[in-house]
């Protein structure tokens, strides 16, 4: 049976598995963390060559700030108070996006509404819905060298992993890795390949909540839970 996870459990599980990918990089690595689940990733980074970027103008984010640590003028792109890491620097929106547009951001971690089998991502608008904002998403998907999508597998029981996105597209064939609370997919070959999945779900159950078809990597293993 597919486990019912709390919102926090979903978020933390996704964040930890994204962090695992980032912690495994071996060169200096500039990583942008988007709004929502992606911002939690900051709490799980242990690799000293990873520097965290928020597009509102900081490179060198530490952990999310506690109430005592919070500085009124220091937030991430999701408006959460954050801490400084040593060697951090501040910049304006122009250079912050120059880092993105110029290809200097190695990895971006983004939330999404939908991802489809061609690696298309939709995350900027729900027509006639309550979301009206592109933010930095379109800049990030085309500018960052690697796009990791971090999102809940389903919404109201419906898969967000689709054959074809139904919402307006943010970027075409830009998704490199997709991490949900139940699975990690790579799009390196142009279509989804399962890399890891959660130990509390079976492969058949995973297929039942995933609209797109996917291959299974020969080295497919278990996600961190």
């Amino acid at each position, binding site marked *: 049976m597919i486990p019912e996870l709390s919102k926090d459990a979903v978020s933390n599980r996704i964040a930890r598995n994204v962090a695992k990918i980032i912690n495994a990089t071996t060169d200096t690595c500039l990583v942008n963390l988007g709004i929502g689940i992606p911002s939690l990733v900051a709490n799980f980074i242990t690799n000293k060559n990873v520097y965290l970027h928020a597009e509102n103008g900081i490179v060198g984010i530490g952990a999310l700030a506690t109430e005592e640590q919070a500085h009124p003028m220091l937030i991430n792109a999701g408006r959460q108070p954050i801490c400084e890491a040593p060697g951090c620097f501040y910049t304006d*929106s122009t250079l912050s996006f120059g880092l993105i547009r110029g290809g200097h951001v190695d990895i971006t971690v983004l939330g999404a509404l939908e991802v489809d089998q061609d690696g298309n991502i939709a995350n*900027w608008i729900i027509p006639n819905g309550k979301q009206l*904002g*592109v933010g930095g998403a379109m800049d990030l998907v085309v500018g960052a060298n690697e796009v990791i999508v971090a999102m809940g597998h389903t919404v109201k029981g419906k898969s967000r992993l689709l054959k074809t996105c139904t919402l307006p597209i943010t970027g075409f064939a830009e998704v490199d890795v997709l991490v949900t609370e139940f699975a990690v997919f790579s799009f390196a070959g142009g279509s989804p390949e399962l890399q890891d999945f959660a130990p509390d779900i079976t492969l058949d159950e995973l297929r039942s909540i995933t609209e797109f078809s996917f291959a299974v990597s020969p080295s497919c293993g278990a996600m961190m839970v």
Partner: protein
Amino acid sequence: MERIDKIKSAAEALACVVDGQSVMVGGFGMRGTPNTLIDALVANGARELTIISNDLGSPGIGLGKLLRNKQVKRLIGTYYTWNEEVVNAFQKGEIDVELVPQGTLAESIRAAGYGIPAYYALASAGTELGEGKETREFDGRTYVMERAIHADIALIQAYKADRIGNLVYCKTARNFNPPMAMGARYTVALVDEIVEPGELDPECVVTPHVFVQAIVKESAL
């Protein structure tokens, strides 16, 4: 000739704003937003404004006040999900909203300040936001041509000014404030502190005085 005094009250600094003008307003997620200047703009009452900003604050807070006071005709910005009143007004057709990718917004404002009429960007090419924009291939990828975004007025927030208008910022309150100072004909800076020329480190000035026409000191401080 004596040195021209740029230090003004918020009301004085905004007295020149009239109906139909375009106003850039700094800030991102309520940090670096010049709230005292927004209050003065509400008091000024100018209507039919085009507001160029990252977001529109929260309902009735920050730039959200301008919407409640019916002063807004058109928004150019990136992210309005934080203020559902914007989403509602847009869906009812009460205001125009032009969504721009955030990096494009910053770069287009900077282009205005730097005398660059147009440049090419990847973001939005092929998407709904890129519809109607001229495209062009460079090195095998399709870019959209983006035009500079100018404004009549910029309202910005900074940490410290010297008396002639050099500015420094505080942490992530910097965001859109420096490019906006450059992109408008007339820039008003709200600051926490004013010092004498020479007291800011000349290596660390972020916005040069050249771009600042009026300085308003935060009165509550």
